[in-house]
């Protein structure tokens, strides 16, 4: 019952930019997207509360994204959680979880869905039901396996129970 349950959904407009090296909000055919640079690591943060239907099975983050102009190449995405249980004035994200190299669609603009699984406990910063959290998505643009030229546009993020 619990596995596969939708926990949170974030669209591009829900993204909160960090103080530097942030993905930029733009539109594509009037649809809001977040653009991640190809040469510099950029991030975006989403905020939420872990809902009561979470059963402790871990959280899988599904990124819906597309190549801005590219029709070939891979993107290296990383995700990390921060449990809102410490001083708000300092970041305390848990260890980054990196996804495998994700290939863009052969047609620019057609989305790709990339999943990154976080186990329960430390990988979600020991987040518990009812607690607030921040969730950060980063394009590891300078990773050797990040080969896609041009921006990667993030359309939406789904957090579901693994």
């Amino acid at each position, binding site marked *: 019952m619990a596995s596969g349950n939708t926990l949170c959904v974030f669209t591009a407009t829900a993204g909160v930019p960090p103080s530097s090296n942030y993905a930029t909000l733009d539109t594509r055919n009037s649809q809001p997207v977040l653009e991640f*640079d*190809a*040469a*510099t690591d950029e991030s975006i943060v989403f905020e939420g509360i872990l809902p009561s239907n979470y059963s402790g099975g871990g959280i899988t983050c599904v990124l819906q994204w597309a190549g801005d*102009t*590219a*029709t*070939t*190449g891979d993107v290296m995405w990383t995700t990390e959680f921060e449990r809102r249980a410490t001083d708000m004035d300092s970041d305390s994200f848990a260890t980054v979880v990196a996804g495998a190299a994700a290939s863009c669609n052969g047609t*620019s603009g057609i989305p790709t869905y990339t999943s990154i699984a976080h186990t329960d406990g430390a990988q979600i910063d020991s987040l518990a039901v009812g607690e607030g959290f921040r969730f950060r998505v980063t394009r590891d643009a300078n990773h050797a396996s*990040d*080969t*896609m*030229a*041009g*921006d990667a546009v993030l359309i939406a993020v789904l957090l579901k129970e693994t």
Partner: protein
Amino acid sequence: MAVLTNAERIKRWARFMRENNESIPVSKDQLRAVYDAVDDFVETIQTPYNQAIPQPARGLLSSRQKARILMDVIEERFVRLP
């Protein structure tokens, strides 16, 4: 003028990827190789380009002016949309 430094090539390559709005069917590394090759190519055509400019302009225009004219012609021929 010497070829671009690695940092300068990276800057231009990054800017191209940021500003380009046409489909890119090659990888980042392949695109970067284009920048390296074009910069090297420009190095080889400096002398013949200068020779192509008629006098007295060849002797009177600055290098920057000559470069801007080349850019202008290329832009009009290949870049500017009709």
